[in-house]
């Protein structure tokens, strides 16, 4: 049969293949044998990360058609995308939700690889590349948040600036390089645009190519079995045995699960995007609007929590040293534990570490979401005073209630369930502090409370303390200083057992 009688499609294919010559390498990659045990649902997260990366590149390019990377116009162009461009809001939502899913899937992939011991010999470099790919993914999430260019982006950058500014010696210079100038402005947005659109994605794609190449060359990690020890001398031979003698071709043996999961994850992104919509942009990026409560995006809330809990003198060393130690630890991991057991059944420290980090992260994120660190800035003027807290009070005590509101005490101290929660609620403060202690606390502060000595007149202080003394439940009396009664009686009563200076005073005969 002569070639001219072959169908046209076959002839076109052959014409192309003679010039590109890529059929061989693709066939080799697609049909390479993998151990049968790797055709597992646990092995789908790597391919899902890749799918999401492609999804992000495509949606990102789409947004790039409309986005204006100018500090004066970026916010407007996002509003225009949200409201005036057909499906613009959906594209923004897809990119935003795709980003959240990508960070999540990359983290799950990393935890799975760690628990399955896949970072051990000979896949050390694959793991190290992966560590940097995680950092780049987080870098994409942060720079993407900056490109949203709303109030949260602006003040998020300010937080970044303050952290960067703590670097010894070159901190100031680093801030200027990061901002592209002296303040957060148009040059800053241009820098982050270049980072988010060209520099980090370019590196990420190159690293991804190399990462996947090494997965193909070194083979997919076999399912770890307790007692199957990794040894540098024998591992390659054992793996080839597993993959060639008892293996299956990657396509279709293992790939169908990857395909199912990738489709499911993209569908989940689409559902979230359509249901919840795009992220912001929130308030206009005008630094003179200071009535704002900046919060970082979901994936950075845990850092926000840590920064709140660190004692002041620990802060700078921790911020500068902890990330370096963490990254070095991750990079060094395959060299520290490059051989030995792979199975999580025999690696309790590994299992515990993952659980510990996951719980810490979850708890810090939860705290970052719900902890009322900030004073409630409008409670003093806006929160209702419950009737029960004013009833049957003397004029002086009511005057104290007015001082309590007017001096912004309520921004940090709730009463009747309303107000700030930075300090303790004061509904029953009188049961905890005596009159003297109240004066002392109000005037001198202490225990993370500012001193109000210079902001209150003596009359205001008296009124305020009198009012605070009435704040106790009916069934529980206000705390009182026992020595007052003693002093009022002109000394210790005759039949007392009071100790003075450690000496028992004998009652007068």
């Amino acid at each position, binding site marked *: 049969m002569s070639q001219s009688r072959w169908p046209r499609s076959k002839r076109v294919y052959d014409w192309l293949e003679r010039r590109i010559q890529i059929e061989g390498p693709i066939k080799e990659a697609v049909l390479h044998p993998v151990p049968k045990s790797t055709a597992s649902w646990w092995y789908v997260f790597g391919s899902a990360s890749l799918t999401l990366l492609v999804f992000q590149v495509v949606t990102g390019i789409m947004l790039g058609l409309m986005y204006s990377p100018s*500090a004066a116009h970026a916010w407007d162009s996002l509003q225009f995308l949200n409201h005036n461009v057909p499906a613009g809001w959906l594209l923004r939502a897809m990119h935003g939700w795709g980003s959240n899913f990508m960070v999540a899937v990359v983290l799950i992939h990393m935890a799975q690889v760690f628990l399955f011991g896949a970072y051990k010999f000979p896949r050390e470099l694959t793991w190290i590349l992966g560590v940097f790919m995680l950092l780049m993914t987080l870098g994409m999430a942060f720079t993407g948040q900056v490109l949203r260019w709303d109030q949260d982006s602006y003040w998020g950058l300010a937080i970044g*600036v303050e952290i960067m*500014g703590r670097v010894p010696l070159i901190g100031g210079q680093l801030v200027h390089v990061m901002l592209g100038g002296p303040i957060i402005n148009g040059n800053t947005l241009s820098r982050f645009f270049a980072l988010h659109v060209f520099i980090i994605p370019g590196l990420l794609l190159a690293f991804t190519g190399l990462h996947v190449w090494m997965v193909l060359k070194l083979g997919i990690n076999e399912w770890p079995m307790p007692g199957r020890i990794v040894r540098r001398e024998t591992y390659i031979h054992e793996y080839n045995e597993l993959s060639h003698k008892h293996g299956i071709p990657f396509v279709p043996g293992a790939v169908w699960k990857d395909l199912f999961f990738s489709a499911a994850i993209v569908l989940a992104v689409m559902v979230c995007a359509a249901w919840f919509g795009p992220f912001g942009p929130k308030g206009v990026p005008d630094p003179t609007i*200071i009535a704002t409560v900046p919060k970082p995006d979901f994936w950075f809330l845990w850092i926000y929590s840590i920064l709140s809990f660190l004692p002041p003198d620990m802060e700078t060393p921790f911020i500068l040293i902890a990330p370096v130690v963490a990254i070095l630890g991750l990079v060094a991991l395959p060299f520290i534990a490059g051989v030995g057991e792979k199975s999580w059944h025999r690696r309790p420290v590994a299992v515990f570490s993952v659980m510990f980090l996951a719980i810490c992260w979850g708890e810090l994120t939860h705290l970052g979401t719900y902890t009322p*660190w900030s004073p409630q800035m409008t409670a*003093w003027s806006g929160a209702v005073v419950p009737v029960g807290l004013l009833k049957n009070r003397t004029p002086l005590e009511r005057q104290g209630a007015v001082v309590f509101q007017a001096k912004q005490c309520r921004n940090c101290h709730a009463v009747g369930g309303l107000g700030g929660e930075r300090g303790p609620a004061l509904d029953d403060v009188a049961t905890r502090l005596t009159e003297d202690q109240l004066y002392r606390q109000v005037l001198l502060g*202490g*225990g993370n409370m500012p*001193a109000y000595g*210079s902001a209150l007149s003596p009359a205001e202080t008296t009124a305020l303390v009198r009012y605070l003394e009435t704040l106790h439940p009916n069934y529980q009396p206000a705390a009182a200083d026992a020595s007052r009664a003693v002093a009022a009686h002109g000394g210790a009563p005759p039949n007392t057992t009071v100790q003075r200076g450690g000496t028992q005073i004998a009652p007068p005969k």
Partner: protein
Amino acid sequence: MDEKLPPPSPQEQEQRLHEERVSRRTFLMNVGIALNALVGAVVAAPIVAYVLGPVLRRREYLAWVSVGNVSDFPPGETKLVNFRNPFSNSWDGQTASVPAYVRCAEAGKFTVFAINCAHLGCPVRWFSESQLFMCPCHGGVYYADGSRASGPPERGLFTYDVKVENGSILIDAGQIPTFRNRASAGPCPSATAPASPALVARIDPCPSPDGPDRSASTIG
């Protein structure tokens, strides 16, 4: 696929490599590599200068900016002001506006605080009734003179250098204040002076963590 050229066998490759190792062509190739390294350096120099431009120009970043007239700030008051950053471009939009607090402690004495909390740079808010600055991020609080009152900040608010000329208040402004970048031309506070500026009239400056304050208090 029979049109493909057969690749040279490993032995052939090895042999050819050996022949080429010391030859005029190898020498010329090495010269070529060196030439490209040189050109690469020539290309890299302006790129590095370009990327580091914001640092190389940093001496120029401070300038005296007016924030208002002396008469606008009565003694005992603290007011929020905005000024246009002296180094801004048309495409900066609203981000070129910078807020700050001007405090007139007594007639003719002005202190200008940066808006940024000394903890992580969030914008602090002034409450004149309680004479406190409060931060919305992690609840840092400062007294009227800018010294730390409570919360996570390690130090007081950043201040700008101030001078009064022809009845208007000028501040030495231009860059976002951080621990290493002075808000103004004064000595870097973290390097020389201890954390907070001196207190004016305070009964207790700020509760020290190991002082008797904390243990005596049942609040917080």
